[in-house]
Every structure is written in structure tokens, then in C-alpha cells.
């Protein structure tokens, strides 16, 4: 059993044993889950020194068909570390945050199952296993969005998330199977497939089907437009889950998949451009939605989608490292923002509407307010905070790829990001309040503090990440912090990103609350944004419309063609045939005698002729 197998197996074992902890009550459940998740994080960190090119065998899952092997390169291991470590911090935070809930067992079972699924997804080099883990995390996401199942909104949101991502997964499975069958002998192993593609053994059409199919899958999981509609509704989940699954880890799976497959798909005509544009359009589109959104958590959800758009754009522009760098930074600061938001909402008794909060929270929850401010600065891309470096790198990559439309959208999105992120800070934390609030306890403060430190410093690890990734055979150029500084300062992108920040700050200073300002300036535009451009209502119309139309057509077939037409039709046909035949059997003796004699005569004639 190598450490890769341990990292994957540990959370699953934990999830399987979790029901036993019911015997020990809530404290035992929380304690056990934390032990499992922290141990997983420890083993995940222990993988970092072993980063190398290639794969590690884990287990033969279905003999002869599916062999589970793990990637040991930087792309996979760093994602594993992010999932496990942020998972551990959020587990610690949950012990206090979720303590009042009645049914913790379900929470922790799904939590550990999710960590296992996410790590498996990050590590596996077998495409079918990737699909399995991909669905496992989707399953846990579904279950945890619907954690408060008695709330119809939560039940609906869970199903919506599952169905929307499932739509994308159709593409993913088609892509995987297409690659599987064009290989001789058939295999799900990514490295073997990559070799075959490099050798030109896979036909172009298959490659195109696989490339765009997987793009669809990634768009579903990472909530990229036009499949972004589920993530904002997913905020019905407990805030810890929003932080873990719907901000820091699961939604990165799509970015990871794109980064992983970039080397094999980038030659497919139009694929890289499509990835870039999907990302850039999403980044801009969802940033505009965040401008008017009154719900605190939904603003953060839109910002997540928007930042994921940056990562997509980076992959499409060919810079896997920029995507990965932004992924790591974003996971840290977005987890921080969500956990701060959770603390606030927790103390306000569940109010999520920023206008109803009344502001002034920052005065009373100083620690939380400071942490949130740090997160906001990162999100807005203010220099020296981690978000700045990676966002600048993404814009630089887009610029270098020569895609003007994509670059413009990303820069505009950066402007809007500043506006909406400060708006949220302003509405919730600034001003005065007569409410009596206090900072949370230690179990919540420690994760906040650690994440805040991470948000300020994680970019300093750039040399480490890039070196490890380059060493493990990825197309990444190793750069030290010094080189990063030099590169950033001397690039044109710096002007764009600083200009965007400056413009954003200017807008913020002049209007403060973009939602109110927009409503005043152009109510119709504000309404369009509030309705999310009507994308969701189109989906609902199509979804239920198909069902209703299908139902009426098929019910008509069932009722009129099959039941009345064939079933009863045949029955009445035989009845009337019987009635018609009845004429010949009136039961009159003389008729019978005539019939018998005629028959006998006929027989005689036939016999006579035959002889």
C-alpha cells in the first residue's frame, strides 16, 4: 500500500465507518471526521516530495477492464493538497459552525466521502475512474446542497445542480468512451492515450468529439456559461459546504480536466479558442450578475464562477501554470471569504440578504471583518495580495495568445470584480450597527487566520509550484519569485490589470453600492441582470415544456393508438367477426341438414376428382 493509495482510501474508509460514530454522539462524529480529514491532509502533504513524472499503480478495479493508477505529477498532487488541506481547515471550522445541527452524521459522512472523491478525481490517471470520482463528488454535492432537505428551495437546488452537471457529464462520458474505443487495445489509461495521440494514431474526428465532449463536462462541473445556473442556487447548502465544495475544490475539477487534457487536445481546431472564450465570457457575464445580487452568498458564488472563468481562459490561452496558480490562490481566498460570510450569517441568525443585514458588522466582528477584507483585496486583484499575481498572469496569457475579444472581456470582468467585491464589503461590514455581535470561537478563528495568512503569502510559493510542475514533465516554465516580479513589472498586462483595478476603485468610490446605482440609472438593465439574462427561465421552459409536450404526445399514443386502436380495436373486430359469423349458425335444424349434405357432397366431389 503506497501513500497514494492511502490518501485515496482513507476518507472512504472514514465515510464507511462514520455510521458507527453515531454511538458516541455528535462529539465523536466531529472528532472522528476531523481525525480522518487531518490525517488525509498529512498524507496528501507527504506526496509533495514524491512529485515526479508518470503514474503510480493503486489497484485493479475491474480485472481486465479498469486499472486504477494515480498521476504523481504536480498538476494532480497540488490539487490533492489543496483539497485535503482546505478540507481539513473547513472540517475544523465545522466543529463549531455546525454544532447546533441535529443530524451531523449525514454531514460528516458526505464531507469525508467528498474529500475522498475529490482526491481520487485529482489523482486518477484512468479516465473511467475519473468519471466515477467526478460523479461521486457530484453526488455528495447534491446531497449536501439538499442538507436542509425540509426547505423546498434546498431540495430544488440540489436536484438542479445534479441535473445541470449531469448534462455536462454526458459530454464527458462520450469523450471518454470515444477515446477508449479508438485505442487498440482498448484502454482508459490517460498516459497511453496521450502517447497514441502524440503518435497521431487517433483519428481527428474522434479527437474532436472527445475534446469538445470533455469541455462540456468541464463546463458543467465548473459552472461555466451557459451551464452556470446551478452554482448560485447551490448556496442553499451549509456555508462550510459552499466554501469547500462550491468554491475551493469541486468546482475546480473542470479547470483541472482542461489543464490535464490541454496537451492532448490543443491541436484540435477551435478547441483552445473555445476554452478561452467560454472562460472569458463566463468571467464577464457572471461578474455583471454579481453587481446587483442582494444575497451575500450568491454574490460570492457569482464571483467564484467568474474567477473559474479566468482559469478556463488561462488554459485556453495555453498557460497551464497561470490556471493552476490562480486555482491555488483562489481556493485559499475564496474559502476565506465564504468562511467569514458564514460566521457573519451564523451570528445574524441566517440572514443572507445584504440589505437586511444593515451593515456595520465590521465594527463588532473585528477579526472576521479584517479577514474578509483581506479576502476582498485578493479577489479584487489589489497588488501584493495573491489574487493580483495570478490574475495578472492570466490576463497576460490571454493577451499573448492574441485573442482580443477574450482579453477585453477578462479586463472588463476585472473592473467589475473590484466594484462588486467592495460593494459586498461595504454593505455588510461598513457603517454602524446597534446589533450585538461578536467574533466566533477558536475553532472557527484558527482556520480564518490561517487562510488569511495564506491569502497574503501563497503567491510566494510560485517558485516551488512551478519547479515541481516542470520537474514532473508538464509544459510549465519554472520561475522564481524574483522572475515573477520581473515578469509582472515588465509586461503590458500589468497596465491592463492595474488600469482595471484603478477604474474599478474609481467606480466604487463614486457609487459605493452598484446594485442601487444601477437600479437608479437603468431599472430595465438592473432587472435583466437580476433575472440572470433570462437564461434559467429558458432552461425551465425547455425542460418542463419537453416533458409536457412529450407527455401529451406519448399519452395520446398510449391511449388512442395502442389502447383504443389496437387493444380494443382488435377486440371489437373479433367481436363483430363473431357477430357476422353468427348469421350462418341460426340453430335451425333444416339449415343444419342442408349444410351437412352440401359438405358431404363437396367431399365426395373432391375425392372423385382426386381419383
Amino acid at each position: 500500500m503506497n501513500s497514494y493509495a492511502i490518501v485515496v482510501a482513507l476518507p472512504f474508509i472514514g465515510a464507511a465507518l462514520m455510521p458507527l460514530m453515531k454511538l458516541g454522539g455528535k462529539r465523536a462524529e466531529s472528532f472522528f471526521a476531523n481525525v480522518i480529514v487531518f490525517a488525509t491532509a498529512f498524507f496528501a502533504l507527504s506526496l509533495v516530495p514524491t512529485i515526479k513524472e508518470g503514474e503510480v499503480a493503486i489497484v485493479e478495479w475491474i480485472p481486465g477492464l479498469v486499472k486504477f493508477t494515480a498521476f504523481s505529477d504536480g498538476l494532480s498532487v497540488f490539487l490533492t493538497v489543496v483539497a485535503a488541506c482546505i478540507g481539513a481547515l473547513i472540517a475544523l471550522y465545522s466543529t463549531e459552525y455546525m454544532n447546533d445541527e441535529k443530524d451531523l452524521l449525514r454531514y460528516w459522512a458526505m464531507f469525508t466521502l467528498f474529500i475522498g472523491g475529490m482526491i481520487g478525481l485529482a489523482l486518477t490517471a484512468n479516465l473511467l475512474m475519473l468519471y466515477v470520482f467526478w460523479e461521486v463528488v457530484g453526488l455528495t454535492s447534491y446531497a449536501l446542497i439538499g442538507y436542509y432537505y425540509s426547505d423546498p428551495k434546498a431540495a430544488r437546488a440540489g436536484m438542479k445542480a445534479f441535473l445541470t452537471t449531469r448534462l455536462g457529464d454526458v459530454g464527458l462520458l462520450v469523450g471518454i468512451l470515444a477515446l477508449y474505443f479508438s485505442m487498440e487495445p482498448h484502454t482508459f489509461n490517460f498516459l497511453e492515450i496521450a502517447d497514441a495521440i502524440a503518435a497521431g494514431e487517433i483519428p481527428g474526428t474522434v479527437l474532436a468529439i472527445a475534446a469538445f465532449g470533455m469541455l462540456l463536462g468541464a463546463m458543467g462541473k465548473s459552472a461555466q456559461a451557459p451551464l452556470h445556473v446551478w452554482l448560485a442556487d447551490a448556496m442553499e447548502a451549509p456555508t462550510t459546504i459552499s466554501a469547500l465544495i462550491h468554491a475551493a475544490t469541486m468546482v475546480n475539477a473542470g479547470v483541472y480536466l482542461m489543464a490535464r487534457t490541454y496537451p492532448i487536445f490543443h491541436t484540435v481546431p477551435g478547441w483552445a479558442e473555445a476554452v478561452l472564450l467560454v472562460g472569458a465570457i463566463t468571467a464577464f457575464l457572471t461578474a455583471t450578475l454579481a453587481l446587483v445580487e442582494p444575497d451575500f452568498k450568491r454574490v460570492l458564488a457569482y464571483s467564484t464562477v467568474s474567477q473559474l472563468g479566468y482559469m478556463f481562459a488561462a488554459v485556453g490561452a495555453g498557460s497551464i501554470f497561470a490556471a493552476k496558480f490562480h486555482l491555488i490562490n483562489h481556493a485559499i481566498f475564496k474559502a476565506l471569504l465564504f468562511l467569514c460570510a458564514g460566521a457573519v450569517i451564523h451570528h445574524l441568525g441566517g440572514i443572507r440578504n445584504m440589505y437586511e443585514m444593515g451593515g456595520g458588522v465590521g465594527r463588532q466582528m473585528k477579526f472576521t471583518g479584517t479577514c474578509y477584507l483581506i479576502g476582498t483585496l485578493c479577489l479584487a486583484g489589489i497588488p501584493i495580495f495573491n489574487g493580483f499575481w495570478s490574475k495578472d498572469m492570466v490576463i497576460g496569457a490571454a493577451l499573448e495568445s492574441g485573442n482580443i475579444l477574450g482579453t477585453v472581456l477578462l479586463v472588463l470582468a476585472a473592473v467589475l470584480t473590484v466594484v462588486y467585491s467592495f460593494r459586498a464589503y461595504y454593505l455588510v461590514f461598513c457603517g454602524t450597527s446597534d446589533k450585538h455581535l461578536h467574533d466566533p470561537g477558536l475553532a472557527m478563528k484558527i482556520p480564518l487566520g490561517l487562510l488569511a495568512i495564506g491569502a497574503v503569502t501563497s503567491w510566494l510559493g510560485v517558485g516551488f509550484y512551478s519547479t515541481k510542475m516542470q520537474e514532473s514533465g508538464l509544459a510549465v516554465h519554472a520561475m522564481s519569485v524574483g522572475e515573477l516580479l520581473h515578469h509582472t513589472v515588465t509586461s503590458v498586462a500589468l497596465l491592463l490589470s492595474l488600469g482595471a483595478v484603478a477604474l474599478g476603485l474609481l467606480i466604487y468610490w463614486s457609487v459605493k453600492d452598484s446594485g442601487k446605482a444601477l437600479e437608479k440609472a437603468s431599472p430595465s438593465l438592473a432587472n435583466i441582470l437580476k433575472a440572470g439574462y433570462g437564461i434559467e427561465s429558458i432552461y425551465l421552459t425547455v425542460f418542463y415544456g419537453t416533458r409536457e409536450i412529450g407527455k401529451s404526445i406519448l399519452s395520446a399514443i398510449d391511449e388512442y393508438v395502442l389502447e383504443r386502436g389496437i387493444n380494443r380495436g382488435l377486440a371489437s373486430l373479433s367481436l363483430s367477426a363473431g357477430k357476422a359469423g353468427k348469421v350462418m349458425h341460426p340453430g335451425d335444424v333444416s339449415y343444419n341438414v342442408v349444410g351437412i349434405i352440401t359438405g358431404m357432397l363437396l367431399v365426395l366431389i373432391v375425392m372423385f376428382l382426386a381419383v
Partner: protein
Amino acid sequence: MADTIMGLILLVPIIGALAVLFVKPPRVRAFSGGVAAVVTVLALWLTFLQWGNAPIDVSWPWIEGLGIEFSFRIDGLATIAMVVASALTALAIAFMPHEYKGKEVEQSSFYGWMLVFLAAMNGVAMAANAIQFYLFWEALLIPSTAMLAFWGDREDRGRIALKYFVYTHVGAVLILLAILWIFSVKGVTDIYAYREVLADVDPSILKVLIWLFVLGFGFKLAMFPFHSWLPDTYEAAPLPAAITMSGGMMGAGIYGIIRFVFTPFPTEIISQLSIPIMTLALITLYYGGIMAFAQKNLRRFLAYSSMSQMGYVLFGIGSAHGLGIGGAAFHIINHGVAKVLLFMVVAVIIYTTGKNRIDEISGLCTRMPVTAFCASVAALSLCGCPPLSGFQSEWMIFAGVASSGNTFFAVVAIAGAVLTSAYALSFVRYAFFGRPMQGAENIKEVPLNILAPMLVLALAAIIVGVWPAPFFEWVSGALGSLQLGI
């Protein structure tokens, strides 16, 4: 040894069915459940004896003038079919709470019919002679029609029983036609000799024969356009009978296709029929899916969902590719587990709330968390979500179809999974989530003796999903020994 057990597998339930008539109502269920459990043990024993060995043949002279023998053959596939059918029947009998239907279902004769049904299913699985197969096939019809006609839950149960009888009988006649054609031309009724005698038959005649078999068995699978009997039957059938039908009898249809089509007929001919069979399968899949999504009545919902799932099975069969057929056979089992579990959940809902429409119930999860868990597992398994068992067979079916070169069909079928998710999860959402329905405070979780069979099935769905290797090897090993030539 083996021949004694084979005899017992048929005799025990038949004698049990007669004996149960003399058992007093309070013990009827325990008695007949015990008989079914004994049969399950016998089937497992037979599996053990046959495991890894050549097929076991037993025969007695029967119609000597025509050279027809009364013969049984036990191979891997037959043992799987028998174990699944017997275990599901035992669970179906054991599961139903006797409070549920009052005295009616407590009548001894009902359980007698259940046992006859089981004997017929095992007879179908073991038959090595086509005429004898046909007899057992028709014998399936009698107990199921009787249970529908006398214990059905709808006023017009007589009409529904008749409809069910006529439909499946027409299917059986098509099968008989093909069997008799082969007998009259080649003089052979031994199913395992078919391959040899069919080798030199004209391909166009072979195609007609294949169609006769596929359509004939298609009636039992509720293949479009022969599904008209299914929703009414499932709505009216008493729940234990419906459980056995959905789990066992539908599987018999696929069993027949594998035995009569894939084993004897040359693969080149079958694969020429791939496209029309898969088209029918896709229509069945989407037809059932859309109708299931639109149903308000819980049992009709399950019926259409079964129809849709049989579309998947037929789809895998139609691929004429080893992985696809293996996946289809595997899916019969996985679907059986999930669907029986859903039937039990629905039975529990009907039993506890007295409601049988989806729009009359909601928020049951607060009152019945274990049932809700079982329902979620079954629904997710049905929509092919890993790590549950439904996924394992579904991807094999898709993979089989794609490797037979029909990528477009595979894409359309995979997209059907979204439809399945929509109806399966809608059911869970409306029945269990949301605000508790009126009167929910009086609802209690059902007792452990009802939950136990459900939890067994839920656990089975999880275990097979997480660790499919041994089960898949069992199924694919059984198919491999048939030398399908694919």
C-alpha cells in the same frame, strides 16, 4: 447430486404451493417465505456445484415418437437467473407487512401462486429443450394472471389481467412459431443443438427467426410498441407480485434472448439487425423515461421507469458486442435490485400514508429517514450514478454499443441518463424532501423487519457499485462459457 437438486428446485415450490393451502393465515407468509428461502439455498448450492465446471445436463425420455426429451441444463447463466429469481421472490414475500393489505393478501392461495410463479421461473432458467421452455414460459403466465385477476388493486383488475394475458401470450406465440419452424425443418428441439443445425440455413430465414424471438421476448420486456400492458399491470398487481415481476420476470425476457438468439445464431447475422433493434431500444428508453417523468401515480411511474430501463438492456443486447451483452445481463440484475428496492419504498409509502400519488406526499424524510436513504440509493443507482451498481452495467452497455461502431446511438443513449436522473430524483425530491405533508406527524418509520430487506438491497447496490469485479466476473464468465462468438 445435481439432478436431485434440480428436481427439488422445481418440486419444493410446487409442493409448497399445495401445502400452503393448509396453513393458517397468520403463518402463511412465514411458511411460503421459508419455502422460497429453501429454493434460494438450493439454487446457491447448484451454483456452487456448477461453479467452474462444464454445464450439467440431465434428461429423461418424454415424447419418444418425436425424439423430444425432457431435459435440463445448468450453466453459469442459468444459476444466476435462478439465484436472482429465488432470492427476489423470498425477499418479496418476506418484505410485505401483513397489515398492509388486510386479509385479502393473507389468503393462502395468493402465496401458493407466488411459489408456482417461482417454480416456473426456475423452470424457464433450466430448460434445455425448446418445447419444454415454452411450457414453462406459458406457466409463468398463469400464476401472474391469477394474482392480477383475483388480488389486483384496481376495480377493473379482470380487464387488466386479460390484457396482460393476451399481450404476453401473443409474444409467446411468436416464440412458439420460431421454435416450431426449427423443429419442423430441422427436427431439433434441443436449444443447445440449434447452433449446429442453423449454420447452413439461408440468412434471410435466419433474420425472420431472430425477429420472431426478439419481438416475442420483447413483449415481456415491454418493448415499444408492446408495452401497453405494463403500466396497468404494475398499477394493479399486488405489491409482492409486482416486485417479483419487475425483478425476475422481465429478466426472463433477456434470458430468453441470450439463450435463443445470441447462443445459436451467427453473430454476423445478428449484427446486421443491430440498427433496428437499437432504434427500438432507444424509442423504448425515451418513451418510458418521458412517461415516467410525467406520471403522478407512483406505481405507473415505476412501470414506465422499468420500460425505460429495459430500453437500456435491449440497447446493450442490440449492440451484438460482448461488453454490451454482458452489460445488459449485468444491468438486469442491477436494475432488478434498484427497482425492487423502489417498489418496496413505494409500498412503504402507500402503507404508511395511504396515498399513492406523488403530488399527495412530501417531506417524508423527516419521518422516515431510513426509507429515504433507501429511496435515494435506488434512484441514484437507476440513473447510473457511480459508485452505485447501476453505473457499472450502464457504462458497459454504452461501451459495448460504442465499440460496435455506433457512436451516435451511444451518445443518444448516454443523454438518456439525464432523463433518468430527472424522473428518479424528482421522485425522491417530491416524496421525501420539502415541507412535511399534512398529517406527517402521525407517520412513523416502518419497523425493522420491513426495513431489513430494503437495507439488504441498498447495501447490495452500494457493494456491487464499489467493488463490481466479482459480480461482473460471475456474469461475464457465465456468458463467456456460452461461446457467443462475440
